C-alpha cells in the first residue's frame, strides 16, 4: 500500500515487516522518531518484540549482541556520536558473525555539534566488518531493511544501512509499503546455525591465539565478500516479488559517457538532474550511485566506470588528512585497470550544507575543463577560518 512516510518511519515499518523480535536503541537526533515509532508499534501490539530501552548506544548494540546470540532477529538504530560510541561493539558483533541489522542516519560528528547530513560517521566504521548499504530514497530505505536481513542471515554478517539526516530521515515521500505476508514469503523466520542453547552448550568469542585467529578473520573476510554475488541474487528475487530493482550499485546514463559522477546518498538524486541538464547541453556525463560500500564491489565499479575518461567522486565526508573517503576507494578499485579513467575528488555538503543540482553541474563542468590533482573543495567559503 502506498503511504507518504518519512525515512525514519520507513525504518520502523521495516522493523515491523521483518518481524524483529528484540530491539534496543538509545535516542539521538535525527534517529529519534525511529525509536518513538517502534515504541508505539510495540505498545499497540503491532510488533511482537521486546524493546530494551538502554542507557547508551554502546549498551544498545551490546543488548542486541546478546539477543542475537540467543538466536533471535534483532535490530538497533543510531546516528553520528551514537554510532561512534558503538564502535567497539560493532567489531564484536561482526566478529561474532551475528546477522544484526542497524539503521544509521548519516549525521556529522562533533565538535562542534552538528546534527545535519554527513557520511563520516558510517565511513569511519568502514573496517568494523559490517556490510554497508547507502540509501537514496525512503522506498530504498524500507526495501533495504528487508534485503538487509535476508543478506545478513544468509552470510552471518551484520548489515548497516545508512541514509542522510533530514534529507531522508525527516522528509516525507511516497513509499510502497509491502504487505506482511509478501515479506514473510521473502524473509523466512531466522533459523540460526548456532545460538546459546543449554541443550547444546558452546562457548562464543573466547580467547583465540595466533595459531587460529588469522584463519577466523580470513573466513570472515571471504564470507563477507560473498555478498558481492549473493546480494544481486537476493535483489533478483526481491524484484520478482515486489517489482523494484536494486543491485550493488546503480548507473544512470553511463552509456557512451566520457565523464561519470560517483555519489552516495541523496546527492545522487540531485546528480541525476544535473546529468540530465548536462546531457541536454550535449555533454556526455553519466552517474554511478554507490550503494554497497563494504564489501567493496570493485569489479562492478570497474565495469561501470571503465569506459569513461574521467570519474568525479563527490564525497559528503572529509577524512582529515586524506580527503573524500569514497574517492580514495574508487581510485584504489580502478588502479587495476590497464588504462584507468582519471579519478577526481570533490568534497561537498559537509555538515548538512545543501548540494543542489546546480552545484553538481558546476562540479562536473569544472572537471570537464580542468585536470586538478588536488581535491576540489566545492562551496568552501574563502577567508576565515580557512585563510585561503
Amino acid at each position, binding site marked *: 500500500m502506498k503511504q507518504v512516510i518519512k525515512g525514519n518511519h520507513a525504518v520502523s515499518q521495516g522493523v515491523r515487516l521483518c518481524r524483529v*523480535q*528484540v530491539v*534496543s536503541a538509545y535516542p539521538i537526533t535525527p534517529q529519534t522518531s525511529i525509536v518513538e515509532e517502534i515504541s508505539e508499534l510495540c505498545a499497540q501490539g503491532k510488533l511482537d*518484540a*521486546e524493546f*530494551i*530501552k*538502554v*542507557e*547508551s548506544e*554502546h*549498551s544498545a548494540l*551490546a*543488548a*542486541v*549482541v*546478546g*539477543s*542475537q*546470540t*540467543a*538466536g*533471535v532477529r*534483532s535490530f538497533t538504530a543510531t546516528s553520528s556520536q551514537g554510532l561512534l560510541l558503538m564502535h*567497539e*561493539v560493532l567489531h*564484536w558483533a561482526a566478529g561474532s558473525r551475528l546477522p544484526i541489522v542497524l539503521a544509521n542516519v548519516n549525521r556529522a560528528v562533533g565538535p562542534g555539534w552538528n546534527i545535519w547530513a554527513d557520511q563520516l560517521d558510517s565511513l569511519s566504521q568502514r573496517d568494523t566488518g559490517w556490510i554497508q548499504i547507502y540509501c537514496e530514497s525512503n522506498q530504498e530505505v524500507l526495501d533495504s531493511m528487508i534485503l538487509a536481513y535476508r543478506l545478513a542471515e544468509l552470510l552471518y554478517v551484520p548489515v548497516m544501512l545508512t541514509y542522510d539526516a533530514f534529507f531522508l530521515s525527516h522528509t516525507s515521500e511516497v513509499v510502497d509499503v509491502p504487505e506482511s505476508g509478501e515479506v514473510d514469503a521473502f524473509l523466512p523466520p531466522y533459523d540460526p546455525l548456532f545460538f*546459546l*542453547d*543449554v541443550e547444546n*552448550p*558452546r*562457548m*562464543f*568469542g*573466547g*580467547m*583465540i*591465539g595466533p595459531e*587460529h585467529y588469522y584463519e577466523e578473520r580470513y573466513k570472515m573476510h571471504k564470507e563477507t565478500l560473498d555478498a558481492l554475488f549473493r546480494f544481486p541474487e537476493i535483489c533478483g528475487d526481491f524484484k520478482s516479488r515486489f517489482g523494484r530493482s536494486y543491485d550493488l550499485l546503480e548507473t544512470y546514463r553511463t552509456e557512451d559517457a566520457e565523464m561519470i559522477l560517483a555519489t552516495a546518498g541523496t546527492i545522487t538524486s540531485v546528480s541525476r538532474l544535473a546529468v540530465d541538464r548536462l546531457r541536454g547541453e550535449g555533454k556526455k556525463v553519466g552517474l554511478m550511485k554507490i550503494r554497497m560500500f563494504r564489501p567493496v564491489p570493485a569489479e562492478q565499479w570497474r565495469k561501470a566506470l571503465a569506459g569513461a575518461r574521467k570519474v568525479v567522486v563527490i564525497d559528503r565526508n572529509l577524512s582529515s588528512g586524506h580527503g573524500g573517503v569514497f574517492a580514495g576507494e574508487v581510485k584504489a578499485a580502478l588502479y587495476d585497470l590497464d588504462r584507468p579513467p582519471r579519478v577526481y575528488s570533490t568534497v561537498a555538503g559537509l555538515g548538512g550544507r545543501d548540494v543542489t543540482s546546480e552545484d553538481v553541474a558546476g562540479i562536473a563542468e569544472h572537471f570537464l575543463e580542468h585536470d586538478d590533482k588536488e581535491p576540489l573543495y566545492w562551496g568552501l567559503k574563502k577567508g576565515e577560518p580557512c585563510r585561503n
Partner: protein
Amino acid sequence: MQELIKAHRELVENEDLVLPGLQSCQGCGAALAMKLALAALGPRTILAMPASCWGVIIGGYPYSALKIPVVHLPFATAAVAASGIRAGLDARGEKDVEVVAWAGDGGTYDIGLQALSGAAERNADILFVCYDNEAYMNTGIQRSSATPMGAWTTTTPSGALKQEPKKDMEKIMLSHYVPYVATASVSFPDDLVAKFKKAKTIRGTRFIRILAPCPPGWRIDSAKAVKVTRMATQCGIFPLYEVVDGKTRVTVRPRVKVPVRDYLAAQGRFSEMTDGMMESVQSWTDVRLKDLEEAEARS
C-alpha cells in the same frame, strides 16, 4: 565445618559443571567461586562473560572448561548483554534458563558500572555476579575502585598506596531498588550456595558479590587463600548479608572474631600500611558494621 560439609555434598550430588584443567593460578578464589555458584545454579544456566580473569581461566579456543553455554563480551557490556540474552530467550520461550553475568570487580565497579546501573534500573531479569578480587588481576594487579584502602598494587606502588576506601557496590545496587543483593565468600561455601539458590527463585535484577582471593595479587600463600579470606568476614571488613526486597539480614555471624589488623597483616599487599592507616581501616569497618546492624534492625 558443618557448612563445608553441606556445600561439599552439593558439589558431590550435583553434576560438576566445571571441568578439570582450569587455567587459573593455584588457590584462585574466582575458580572456586564458579564451582560453588554453578553447583547451586545447575546446567540450565547461560553465562555472559566480559573481559576478566575468567575469560582466561575458562581456556582458549577450541576448549571451554564449563559445561554450560558461555558468551564472551566486551568489557563494559556484561549486564546489558545478559539482559539482551534474557530477551532473546524469552522470545524463544526458554523461560526456565537462568542468565548470569559473571564479571570481575573491574567489569562491575568500573567499566561495567554504567551498563549494570541501566540493567538494574530496568530490573532486567538477570543474576549479576561480581567475583571481587579487589584489583585488575588479569592484567597484573592494577588498582580498581574495588581495591581497599592501603593496598599495594602496581599502580598504587610503594609510597603511593591506595588512599581511598573501596566503593560500596551493594549500596549502589540497593539504590536501584533491585529485589536481591547479597555478599558471599568462597570461605563460607554453604552460605554462598544458599544465596545462589535463593537468587534463582527471585525474578528481576539480582546481585551477588563474592569475595574471591587472588594469591598473587594479595601477596598470600595460595594454600592460605581460603583461610585469609575467612578472616575478612571474621574481622568485619567483609560481612556476609543479603537484602531481599529491601530487608537486610546478616547471614553469617562468625563465631571467631579477629581484629582488622590481623586480616591486613596476613597479606603482603598491606605490608606497607602504617599503624595509623590500619586504625582508620578499623574505624571505617566499625562504622560500616554499625550501619549494617542498623539496617538489619530496621528490617
